[in-house]
């Protein structure tokens, strides 16, 4: 910003006026801080207060209103002025509501809030969007099963051209080979017609959709708005540009040959659910052995699922699909004896109706584990309800409801080199859950089986070729409230590759993924960030003149947004970037910056705080708080009028990943007595929406120890803590304890230097 015109506006309302001397703050602003405009108001967010600021802005007196009032999380509309860049200094939640009124320390905290606000403004610029050239609005859908077909149709219906690729020679996937589907409409009782053929027709008849069968992705490069995809089919490779990618590669059945104990292979009349489905779709169920129509059929559920030796998860759909098949058998022959042997019958939601329908039709449900299936089709069941082991004889056919394996990798491709670390970055599925009185329970090792096969998209990213996936091999989001929160911006998975799901849910999921793809394309066009910092126009700028090519930024970027060019310098794929600032935090030479968030800005804020001399007995503790969890928790501490120590100085940061360790050494050199980083949960079960910000910060802190030692300071003066958004009642105490510890060390001897 060439011509900064800061103005400090101090609110006296909500108890601020009673807690601190706002007159003194005004005097500070116009005096020491030399801010040309400084005003106070009884009710700044009221119409009159807002009008005052509006007028100053309109008159050209102010273009950086520094609102010394409430938290940046409230009154955002009121304090948003066209043509001006607002800075918020939180006097309310973090000072007036949390510190004792009228005391010197409270006044000092308030004064420092104003100082930090003014310092922040001095290093902030209004970001200008970076819009890439050659953007494309076409959506690539990978996978031509029912999920992919739905995705293609949804994207086309939203006005996008679609490129739909399918690895096999035919569209339709599993669904095309099946007879009927599970009910998804009321009354939820009867198998419904399979709609896959009509989906195929609709896709083939849609001029916006280009279908390529026998095609896979050889390589993916580029970024949202301009992905360069190399497609391979039998005849060769072809380069295409697309704006976003929807991955709907689906699933494959668990390999039944691994289920020898369930008789697979021992008798031709032990078949998988998928094989049975094929029979149902092609003229009816017949025994492979003699072609006879079976009259007594047992379904063994969880064949391979919920079994640590095979698939640890529940494949979700097998209960429903087995019920469907059982109903079809009974419908064809009402006298047939059909048994469903389950451990837990899982027909969630309205599928319970389907279960009842099968009971009504006479299908027999037995609870128990199938212990073995013999070559003569004797099924031995540990019948839990009768309390005895039952050999079931006289069966004509045994159906194994085999589970579903996600196709987040392509088993027909060779495994790629590298990229293992992007797999299974998830909650350890066998990790013990914390219990009172047990400090730390040893976590059993979890063999993180990297799924066989090669990468689906073969991403040419610094972070590896795979789609990130979770512990069980599903390419799903890590977050409950954001199922489409991808770690590869612009690429969205849907259907059974994301989570075991049936056709109806997959269709819905396809629509959800397409919506996100549409947003990705639109955001790329506007140079805006995607979730969670939606709309942010800032982006990292690299001062290549002093870059040492250390590669930390390219390695640490959680989204793989930064490549290294041929000379080894970082090169930003701007639309992959989610603006967390992890690169900025990583940079040892402080040369990565955002227009409105940069190393200098925070340094100035740290330096702006007045450090009382060593005789004052007044400590100063720097707290850098994640703005998504810790800062709101601190706000809520104030809202609940929990007290906060008046010796802390708080600076919200985008993510702990953006914290540059030089800020910490700056702080100690300036005379702070301690520094605390507040971030969200790290580790496998991370909470960070920038994937690993707090984890990275912790790693970096290890090195700060050395810096402190070189300054002859105790390592304990710096701490990184996990603070969740629900810690409003705890966070004040965490601070108090830390301050107490610091007092134990005594003051930082560097004060006054």
């Amino acid at each position, binding site marked *: 910003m060439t011509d900064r015109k800061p103005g400090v506006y101090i609110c006296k309302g909500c108890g601020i006026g009673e807690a601190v001397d706002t007159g003194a703050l005004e005097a500070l602003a116009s005096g020491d801080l030399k801010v040309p405009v400084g005003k106070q108001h009884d009710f700044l967010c009221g119409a009159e207060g807002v009008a005052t600021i509006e007028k100053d802005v309109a008159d050209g007196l102010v273009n950086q209103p520094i609102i010394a009032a409430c938290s940046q999380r409230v*009154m955002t509309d009121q304090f948003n002025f066209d043509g001006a860049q607002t800075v918020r200094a939180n006097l309310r939640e973090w000072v007036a509501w949390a510190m004792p009124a009228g005391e010197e320390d409270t006044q000092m905290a308030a004064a420092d809030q104003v100082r930090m606000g003014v310092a922040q403004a001095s290093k902030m610029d209004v970001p200008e969007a970076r819009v890439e050239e050659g953007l494309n609005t076409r959506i690539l859908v990978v996978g031509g099963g029912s999920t992919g077909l739905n995705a293609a149709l949804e994207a086309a219906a939203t006005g996008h051209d679609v490129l739909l690729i399918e690895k096999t020679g035919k569209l339709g996937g599993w669904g095309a080979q099946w007879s009927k589907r599970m009910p998804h409409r009321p009354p939820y009782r009867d198998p419904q017609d399979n709609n896959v053929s009509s989906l195929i027709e609709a896709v083939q008849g849609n001029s916006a959709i280009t279908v390529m069968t026998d095609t896979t992705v050889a390589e993916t490069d580029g970024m949202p708005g301009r992905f360069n995809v190399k497609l391979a089919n039998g005849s060769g490779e072809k380069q295409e540009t697309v704006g976003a990618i929807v991955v709907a590669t689906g699933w494959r059945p668990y390999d039944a040959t691994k289920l020898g104990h369930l008789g697979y292979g021992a008798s031709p009349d032990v078949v998988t659910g998928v094989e049975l489905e094929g029979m149902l779709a092609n003229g009816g169920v017949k025994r492979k052995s003699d072609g006879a129509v079976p009259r007594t059929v047992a379904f063994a559920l969880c064949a391979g699922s919920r079994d640590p030796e095979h698939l640890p998860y529940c494949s979700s759909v097998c209960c429903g699909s087995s019920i469907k098949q059982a109903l079809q058998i009974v419908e064809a022959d009402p006298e047939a004896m059909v048994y469903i042997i389950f451990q837990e019958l*899982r027909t969630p939601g309205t599928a319970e109706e389907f279960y009842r329908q099968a009971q009504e039709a006479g299908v027999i449900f037995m609870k128990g584990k199938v212990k073995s299936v013999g070559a003569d089709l004797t099924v031995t069941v540990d019948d839990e309800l009768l309390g005895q082991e039952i050999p079931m004889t006289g069966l004509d056919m045994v159906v194994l409801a085999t589970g579903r394996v996600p196709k987040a990798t392509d088993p027909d491709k060779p495994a790629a080199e590298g990229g293992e670390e992007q797999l299974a970055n998830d909650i350890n599925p066998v990790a013990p859950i914390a219990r009172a009185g047990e400090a730390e329970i040893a976590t059993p090792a979890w063999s993180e089986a990297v799924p066989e096969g090669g990468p689906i998209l073969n991403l040419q990213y610094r972070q590896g070729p795979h789609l990130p996936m979770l512990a069980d091999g599903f390419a799903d989001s890590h977050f409950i409230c954001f199922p489409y929160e991808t770690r590869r911006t612009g690429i969205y998975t849907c259907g059974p590759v994301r989570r075991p799901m049936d056709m109806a849910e997959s269709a819905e999921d396809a629509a959800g993924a397409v919506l996100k793809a549409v947003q990705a394309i639109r955001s790329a066009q506007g140079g805006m960030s995607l979730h969670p910092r939606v709309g942010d126009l800032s982006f990292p700028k690299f001062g290549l003149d002093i870059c040492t090519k250390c590669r930390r930024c390219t390695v640490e970027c959680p989204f793989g947004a930064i490549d290294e060019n041929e000379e080894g310098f970082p090169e930003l794929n701007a639309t992959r970037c989610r603006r967390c600032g992890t690169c900025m935090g990583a940079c040892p030479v402080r040369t990565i910056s955002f227009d409105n968030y940069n190393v200098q800005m925070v340094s100035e804020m740290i330096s702006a705080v007045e450090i009382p001399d060593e005789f004052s007995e007044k400590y100063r503790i720097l707290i850098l708080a994640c703005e998504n969890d810790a800062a709101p928790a601190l706000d809520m501490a104030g809202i609940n009028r929990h007290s906060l120590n008046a010796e802390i100085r708080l600076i919200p940061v985008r993510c702990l990943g953006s914290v540059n360790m030089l800020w910490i050494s700056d702080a100690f050199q300036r005379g702070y007595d301690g520094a605390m980083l507040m971030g969200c949960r790290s580790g496998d079960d991370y909470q960070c929406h920038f994937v690993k910000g707090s984890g990275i910060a912790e790693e970096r802190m290890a090195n700060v120890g050395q810096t402190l030692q070189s300054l002859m300071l105790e390592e304990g003066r710096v701490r990184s803590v996990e603070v969740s958004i629900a810690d409003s009642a705890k966070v004040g105490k965490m601070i108090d304890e830390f301050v107490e510890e610091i007092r134990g060390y005594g003051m930082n001897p560097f004060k006054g230097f």
Partner: protein
Amino acid sequence: MANQGPKSQTILVVGGGIAGVTAAIEAAETGYDVILLERGPALGGRVAQLNRYFPKLCHPTCGLEINFQRIRKLKNLRVVTMASVAGVKGEKGDYTVSVSVSPRYVNANCTACGACAEATDMEVDSPFNYGLSKTKAAYLPHEHAFPMRYVVAPSAIGTPEADKIKAACKYDAVDLEDKGEDFEVNCGAVIWATGWEPYDPEKLESYNYNLSADIVSNVQMERLANHDGPTGGKIVRPSNGEPVKKVAMIQCAGSRDLNHLPYCSRICCLGSLKHAVYVREQYEDAQVDIYYIDLRAHDKLEAFYQRVAADPQVNFVKSKPASIRIDEEGRPVLCGENTITRELYEAPYDLVVLATGMKPAASEGYVPDIAMEQDEYGFLVPSVEGDGGIIPAGVASGPLDVSMSVQSATAAALKAIQAVGPKS
């Protein structure tokens, strides 16, 4: 009409729970104008009242915070609280929706300073804590409320307390004459995300919910465990505030029952597993017994089930308890049959949690009769004959967990932008 295109491209979202909030934001982030209506005083719906989510055990407020930040940035998204829909007319591309806003008695001047609450001694049942505690008659919906604005309880209106409340406000934010307002919205598509209500535990007659404070519902358990709840997050016996040693969870309390909710509510098994964790995190010696018919930890949630089940102090009893009686010491006693052992049990507990199911809120409230079908439970399904302009989302469309609700809402946002056509 055929070639005229939509008259309005505005998308209206009814319901400000996680599904409605998601649908509104996702649609608005594609550039369309969106209006979000919420019946209550703050956004977030049922999830705002949850302590943590399964299986990550993370806090719902975290995701809500991100969503609220997104809303703050979206100038094309307008949020109206205290608002419900009284009527829908028209067709895709041109709906006229009558909106009725009930009085909050607090206007936009409110800074959430809290002087009004301090001024009154009158208390009302806390709706946020499902009646487990009282709140002042002028109250902030909760610490994470969006919008951050107070409410005056209607029961205070017309009493001297209301005058005290009004007098305490320096910002002229208390409007005791507030009569609410009715207005009409012209929009091209409507997303119906009215969510759910907990099934009324009083209807489970043999469980005698009313006879003991130590029989709570699962939604109340969430409040008991929440730092912002009636006990500051300490799980204790509501009757006497004492620690709990033996806790029972009763699954399918109302669900999978032709006398109550015939469907499976999907979330309750996982919810109770999570509640077991809440208890075990707080008490070294506590025992938790989960009474169930089928433990429905679908898909990857199976791992959560196994992780909780690894705790030797969490037991699973395959049984639908028949009844609860109260013993001489006032403790609830579960009576029933263990279906695996055939034993008849009479087991006393310090705390019993009824895993009550989800009842679609739409089964009680207004539902537009155009382009919308209700199944026999009250869940909404898109009409086969409909034009696709009214789109159900979240639990209004079926019993879903949070992740599936968000998935459903995101899909609904796409359907809505398709319905109103390319941005003009």
